[in-house]
């Protein structure tokens, strides 16, 4: 039973790495739509992106059960996350404190933990790996943390997500928060942000 499944290394500098990752997420959450970047300094197991790995190693631990979309449920990934985060990997998105999915496979947002009015923080933070992130157009964001409006391009998310997002926003103070990730880049959509999609005419 020699354990030969190689576990890829985590942060090259554990203390500073975790702090940088935390800071990147904090900045991204405070200024919705602004693009930040973070990585562990080591290549993560496929298909985790650099930013996803750094966010998990910085924020996920034994107290935060993690749900993985099927594309991520692979031995190298689960061994990596269990070893470095010590987190339980669970079957039901509704029990998850964190979740990792691709934009295409993102389940309906209502499937995740939404918190309750007394404890709205008991909701899932969903890390969504997308095909591209940019600031040159596409979506118009507004809400707390944005002075007027902010532009964000997100590529490779499933149809209907933005309608789903509007419904999520209605639940306030309940609701999920999204961290959109591409490579080492990340942008956050906290539950308070309003997303306008371009009119299709």
């Amino acid at each position, binding site marked *: 039973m020699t354990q030969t499944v190689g576990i890829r290394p985590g942060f090259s500098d554990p203390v500073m790495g975790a702090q940088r990752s935390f800071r990147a997420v904090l900045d991204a959450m405070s200024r919705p739509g602004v693009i930040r970047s973070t990585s562990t300094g080591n290549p993560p197991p496929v298909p985790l992106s650099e930013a996803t790995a750094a966010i998990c190693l910085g924020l996920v*631990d*034994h*107290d935060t059960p993690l749900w993985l979309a099927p594309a991520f449920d692979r031995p190298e990934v689960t061994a990596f996350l*269990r070893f470095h*985060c*010590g*987190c339980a*990997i669970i079957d039901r998105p509704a029990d998850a404190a964190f979740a990792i999915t691709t934009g295409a496979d993102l389940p309906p947002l209502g499937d995740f933990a939404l918190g309750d009015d007394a404890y709205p923080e008991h909701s899932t933070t969903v890390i969504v790996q997308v095909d591209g992130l940019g600031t040159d157009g596409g979506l118009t964001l507004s809400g707390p943390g944005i002075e007027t409006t902010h532009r964000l391009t997100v590529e490779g998310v499933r149809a209907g997500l933005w309608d789903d997002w509007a419904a999520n926003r209605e639940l306030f103070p309940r609701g999920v928060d999204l961290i959109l990730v591409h490579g080492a880049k990340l942008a956050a959509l906290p539950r308070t942000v309003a997303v306008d999609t371009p009119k299709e005419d």
Partner: protein
Amino acid sequence: MYVAVKGGEQAIENSQKLLAEERRGDTGVPELSLDQIREQMALAVDRVMTEGSLYDPELAALAIKQACGDLQEAIFLLRAYRTTLPRFGVSEPIDTGHMAIRRRISATYKDLPGGQVLGPSFDYTHRLLDFALAAGDTRPVADIAEQAVDSGMPRVTDILNHEGLVEVEEPESDDTPVFDLTRESPRYPADRPARLQNLARGDEGFLLALGYSTQRGFGNNHPFAGEIRLGEVAVEFAPEELGFPIEIGEITVTECQMINQFKGSASQPPQFTRGYGLTFGHCERKAMSMALVDRALRAEEFGEPVEAPAQDEEFVMAHSDNVEASGFVQHLKLPHYVDFQAELVTVRALRKQAFAAAEVNPVSDAAE
């Protein structure tokens, strides 16, 4: 008007220096080592670990030394330290039925399987000061029997279970989340796991007084000390990366099973009910008090009237923690200069009104 007050920096620094000097005491006397505290003040160490909610005898000994022997201060130090450590996870429930027993007594059965094992106890001492200890350099030696005690001694409650005479404690499903007051704030009504965790870290003096109050009639529940056992149990933990449980060490615990009379209700036949106490180390008085209060707090579950303080879970849980209690009582030492000024103004105004009223309507006094 609000006047910001600054100052006292030098005084505080010197106060701490003075504390350090007084902690050390006469330097002509050898300094205490942590080994000495751990080995010779073992019951203080055990209390600090239990109420400090962290099993680590060396750290508890350090806390006692730093606190000059003030155990509540030591408990505070240990609680503060534990917040700096990451939590790797949660152990499998310890199995007190498989204990390397050092003491095990029952007040309900004389001849129970495994026997009455007195272990180390103050119970049979005469409480006379022993001046031989004052002389120092004692090397007492305990007797050693041929055969060790049986580690698989049945619990008294399991013996009673066979006849259906005592309520059965069934494990719940493994999916049921277990409340953790280090992660969530208590919500009332609380469940039994929340209460037991609260009592386990609760102040021994507070629980002792509450347990005593139930015996004196404030929520009496006719307790018998079904069994008290002390010994070592293995702790098993399943790291996520391994996926199976491993033993990570052995800890000393004290367990108390109280057995209480219960007349029965519409849904339950008459049988004995139970109260449970469990502590780190050897904390027998605490384990017994915990078991009494645990049973008292189950009053509602058994359809008993909730009338006494020991039966009121919000009263008990909100006041059992000596770190919280000590903090709130001792915060009264902090400057309240502005608050007090406001009160002074109010009291002066009220007095003025009261005197003015008295002049208009003099109170006739019998002495006049």
